[in-house]
């Protein structure tokens, strides 16, 4: 176990490179990716994004995550002090693992996108029985 560090706020990073045709900033969501024998699990922090406004796409081994926020929340509010900006989220990953696209599942819970990426049958690790001669 790693010792629990003090939790600090990181500056949001804007998406570099590809430019969107829509005006407004896109941010890179923080992610955790874990590997299990039969699947990969991914979590992405996308605060302000509801389950209706998130898109998960896997095409040609590229996983694309997009989340859109709705600025309506801020109607009639005037800022006096701000520490972060709001924006849509975008991130892409090239997957090395052989993922079974038909079985991908995604859930959105409290602003966290959870994606389950099951490995294809032949990509799962197999224990090989060693027999005595």
């Amino acid at each position: 176990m790693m010792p629990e560090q003090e939790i600090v706020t990181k500056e949001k990073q804007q998406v570099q490179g590809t430019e969107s045709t829509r005006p407004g900033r896109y941010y890179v969501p923080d992610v955790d990716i874990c590997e299990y024998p039969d699947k990969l699990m991914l979590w992405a922090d996308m605060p302000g994004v509801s389950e209706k406004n998130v898109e998960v796409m896997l095409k040609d081994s590229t996983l694309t995550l997009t989340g859109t926020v709705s600025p309506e929340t801020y109607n009639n509010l005037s800022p006096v002090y701000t520490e972060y900006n709001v924006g849509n989220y975008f991130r892409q990953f090239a997957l090395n693992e052989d993922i079974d696209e038909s079985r991908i599942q995604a859930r959105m819970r409290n602003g966290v996108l959870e994606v389950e990426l099951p490995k294809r049958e032949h990509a799962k690790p197999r224990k090989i029985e060693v027999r005595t001669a």
Partner: protein
Amino acid sequence: MALIRFDAFDPLSNLLALQQELERFIRNPAFNLGPSGYGAYPPINIFEDREGTVIISEIPGLDPSKLEISGAGRTVTIHGERKREEVNATGYHRRERPFGEFSRSIQLPNDLDMAQATAKYENGVLTLKIPKVEAARPRQITVNAAS
């Protein structure tokens, strides 16, 4: 201070307008936060509307029952804990998300009515509304014609 108004027919330029408005007040030096400033978790944005102060904070992936908000005088404290979802993973490819216990106190410039404060946690965003005390609200003053 401009009030943000959005044209309901154009949500795309609305986001840009909002981003520019938020940018103008980023770490506003004229605003004294008190003990914990920028960098403390969770990040906060402070707004004003006609009723009072609105604090919005991005704290994704929180169990709402683990979120405690308390207010005393002009100070509001947000306390909670973010816990990891994964268990028994065989390996990690990325570990970027922050986890742990946090507590942040924010000092507000006005006298607010903590007893009337409301908090909402939706899509990982906490919205805390604290109305002004009755005496601080703007009042319409009737002008009487001299008889």
